[in-house]
Structure formats: C-alpha cells, structure tokens
C-alpha cells in the first residue's frame, strides 16, 4: 500500500518576519519528504524604488528592507558606492560603523535564540535572552536615538559621532551583558536535553553549503570558514583582534553555538572600537559631491550572513541599477537539503535554525489532501515540538521545566 502524503503549508505572514515566505512541506507520516517555497508576499520593489531616489536617500530606503538587519544593508550599500568612488573613509567613522554593526549582531542573535528556546518549550530561555537583548537596544538608542533603524550610515562616513561621555555608560552595560551571555552559552553547552534535542537535527553538509551558496552562521556551523569581515575587511575589522567562529557538524545545535559565541566575539570587537575612539577627536566623514559613472560592489556581514549590493551609476544623482541580495535569499533554499528526511516535530526548529523562519512558522496548518480537513495549525506544530522535548526529558531522567 502506498503511503499517504500530507501537505503542510507554512506561512506566509507573521509580524516578526523580514521576508515573508510560504513553505509547503510534503510529509509521509511523521517524515518530511519534500519542501517547496514561495516568497514574494511582501515584494516591495525596493530595487525599483531605489532607481528613483537620490544616492543619499537610498541609504534610508534600504535601511527599511529589514527591521533587524537595519544597518547591514546600508553598510553594504555605502561599501558599494565607496567601491565605485574609490575613497577612503576617516578612521573614526570606520570604528563607529563597526560598533553599530556588532550591536546589531548581538541583539539579532539574542532574538533568534529566544525564539528557538520557545519552539523547544524552553520559555525561560525565551524570557532570559529577550531580557538581555534590551540593554543592547538601549545602547543603540543612546548612540543613534533609535532602538532600530539607526540611520548611522552615510556615503563617505557616518552621520553621528559617539560622544566621549557616553563611552563609560556603554562599556558598563556591555560588561553586564557579557556576564549574562557567558552564563547563557554555558547553560546551552551543558544542557543534556538541548543536546539530545538538537544534535544531529537538520544537518547541512559542506557540499550543500557550496551548492546553495549558503552564508553566515548557517555556513559557519557546517565548518565553512567564510566571513566577509575577515575575507574582505571593511570598516575597522582589520584594525582589531577577533576570531571567526566555526563549528563542524552543521546541525541546529552548532548553529545555536556559533551564534552565541559570535555574540561574545562582538562584545570584544565593540570594546576595542570604543577604546580606539575614546578621548580622540576626528572627522567622521569624507565629503562626497558627485557620483561618477561606473559600477560598484559592496558586501558586509549581517547577523544572518553576507549582504551583497551591486550599484551602477550613469553620472546622474540616482543609481540606474541597484541589486540587493539578502543572506536569506541563499540560506532558505538549503531547507531542501536540511529538512528532507526529518520528522515534522523537528521541522519548526530546523526552519528556525537558519533564522529567517520563525517568521514563517506562525501560520502553519496541516491539511489532509484527500479530505481537505485541517489537522494541525501552528500552535499544534509548536506543541509537537515541545512535547518531543518533554519526551526527551523523560528518557534522560531530567525533570521537565518550562
């Protein structure tokens, strides 16, 4: 008797998501046998709008591509324009760019980690990591006036300076976060239930990373040592000491470990940058008047991986073509490699493992194709995932605690 295939649609809308997509999982029993995806539900034609904006206005436009990586796109864009112009920016601006980019990385990773905890039934993790994310946003507000959408990047430099009297405040907050982060990281590394639940789940091999061009923590968890900050240093990343974090197994556990360790590395970067600008005065921008005809490529490491921008100028005050590639564009197709063969109770966390996806899991329903009857909705799927954690707890003899 042939097995009955059940279709599980996931998506498309959720208030958290940067890129709404629609996933279709084909399942046989508990096992996922195929994945399909359909993005485009929130296609805003940013590339087209960009062609009608002034070069300076584009930085604000692309900041709004994504609320969480709201500085990664502007960094890649200004890198692209500066590549076209062949200009050097002042050293102080380089450090400030680094500080903003790393603050963003910490809060983005903590946000991910909290949601991953929720999916697994660890709501304490969710509350902790979102609590520790808050001081990071406060630092962002202190520097830029905004918790998100910092509007700090500008062609040729940055828009705002960091005042000397703010630096001790920022450093104090950072050292507090550092202690909490270390505790969180150790808790994850030592937890037998998380290990049982996440190790060996949703493995992405090195070969698939190559084939799909996956980037960021998704690739680094599989042992592929790529990081634009090291490979082609922009801003001040070549002026300070830091390490690229990689793991070997490519499962969801390693993706979590890479992200948590990266947060600690980010704090190290920010501290060095603050030391470098402290007590010094200097220019924060190189003046740019005209953009000559030509083309430029800029990329930067966003929390989720490499952001890539290509721009072309015809000498007028607007780009004639502006191509944007966000990291999820290459990371999402890897589900084809990582989800197939896994059970449906693990899919929520595998999709979340790449990071675009808790976004998409909000509105999940399982339909029986033949009867057209709703079997599961999203909360059931989360429940499945949480129940599995409970079972794992019992098998390990650990007391289940939310």
């Amino acid at each position, binding site marked *: 008797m042939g097995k009955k295939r059940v279709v599980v649609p996931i998506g498309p809308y959720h208030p958290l998501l940067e890129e709404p997509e629609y996933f279709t999982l084909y399942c046989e029993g508990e096992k996922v046998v195929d994945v399909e995806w359909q*993005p485009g539900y929130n*296609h805003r034609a940013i590339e087209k709008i960009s062609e009608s904006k002034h070069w300076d206005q584009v930085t604000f436009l692309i900041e709004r591509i994504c609320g969480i990586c709201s500085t990664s796109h502007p960094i890649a864009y200004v890198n692209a324009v500066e590549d076209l112009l062949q200009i050097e920016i002042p050293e102080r601006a380089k450090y400030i760019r680094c500080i903003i980019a790393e603050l963003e990385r910490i809060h983005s990773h903590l946000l991910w980690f909290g949601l991953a905890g929720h999916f697994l039934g660890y709501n304490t993790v969710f509350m902790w990591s979102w609590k520790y994310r808050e001081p990071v946003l406060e630092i962002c507000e202190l520097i830029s006036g905004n918790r998100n959408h910092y509007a700090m990047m500008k062609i040729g430099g940055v828009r705002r300076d960091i005042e000397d009297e703010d630096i001790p405040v920022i450093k104090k907050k950072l050292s507090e976060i550092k202690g909490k982060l270390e505790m969180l990281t150790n808790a994850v590394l030592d937890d037998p239930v998380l290990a049982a639940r996440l190790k060996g789940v949703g493995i992405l091999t090195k070969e698939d990373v190559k*084939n799909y*061009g996956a980037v960021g923590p998704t690739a680094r968890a599989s042992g592929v040592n*790529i990081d634009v900050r090291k490979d082609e*240093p922009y801003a001040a990343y070549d002026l300070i000491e830091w390490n690229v974090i990689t793991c070997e197994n490519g499962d969801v556990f390693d993706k979590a470990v890479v992200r948590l360790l990266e947060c600690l590395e980010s704090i190290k970067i920010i501290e060095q940058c603050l030391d470098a600008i402290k007590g010094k005065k200097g220019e924060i921008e190189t003046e740019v008047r005209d953009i000559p005809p030509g083309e430029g490529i800029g990329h930067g490491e966003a929390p989720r991986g490499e952001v890539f921008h290509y721009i072309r100028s015809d000498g007028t005050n607007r780009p004639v073509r502006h*191509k944007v590639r966000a990291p999820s*564009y290459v990371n999402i197709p890897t589900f084809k490699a990582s989800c197939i063969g896994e059970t449906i109770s693990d899919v929520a966390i595998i999709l979340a493992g790449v990071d675009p996806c808790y976004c998409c899991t909000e509105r999940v329903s399982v339909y029986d194709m033949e009867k057209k009857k709703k079997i599961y909705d999203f909360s059931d799927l989360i429940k499945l995932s949480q129940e599995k954690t409970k079972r794992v707890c019992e098998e390990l003899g650990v007391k289940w605690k939310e």
Partner: protein
Amino acid sequence: MNAENRLREKFGEKIKIEKPNEKRIYVTCDKDDLEEIVKFIFRDMDARYIVATGLQNFDNFEILYHFGIDEEGKVLSVRVYLDKDKPEVKSLTHIIPGIAWIEREIWELLGINFVGHPNLKHLLLPEDWPEGNYPLRKY
C-alpha cells in the same frame, strides 16, 4: 597562482578582464562560452556563488554572475551581453543548484529567458501576473 591568472591561462582570448581596483574583477565573455567559464570558476576554482544581477541597457541586456573568491578577498563578476530583441541564455542550474531562484527572478522582472531551467515560474510576482509585463525593463 591567483584567480585572475588562472582565468587568463585557461581562457586567453575568450575573455576580457577589467580590474577597477584590487578587490574587484570583471570578466566579460560571449554567452556561448558562459557555461564553460562559470563551471571552471565554480567547480575548479572553488569560488562561492553569490548572486546574479540582470539589467537592461539601451541597446542590449546584461547579466552579471557574481562569485566570491574568499581566500583572496575578491569578488569576481562574469558579464554577458544578450540580444535586445530576444534575450536568451542557457540556465546554469545544472552547475549551481542555488542559482535557480535568481534566474526565475530575472526572468520575471526583465523577461530574459533561461533555456533549460527546470522550474521557470514566478518567484516574487503573483502567478497571474500579465504576460509580457516586465517591471525592471526601461526601454
């Protein structure tokens, strides 16, 4: 040997190399040689596929295939020009599986046909998008 020299040695006259600065390499080639060149770059040189950019110029179409040469910290872009009236190029999905999405996107936004693409349907635009309307075309 660095990436640029390997390409020069392998393809010689078939390609034209431009280097606006040390970190960027632009390789222009004929669309018939594209498959061979991309295969060499992606498989033999082990470059990382980034994305492709499609654009329309006044008298032709243009696609740039971007690759990251991460050991050298460079971005290599392979440029092909396509015919204005019948823009068409071979799909590269059999070499780079991850390229399927961007080919679908260029197809729907610019109307460039990718011959041999296994699943050439709308990616960002709705399925009932009127045929022959290409949002990124200018001329």
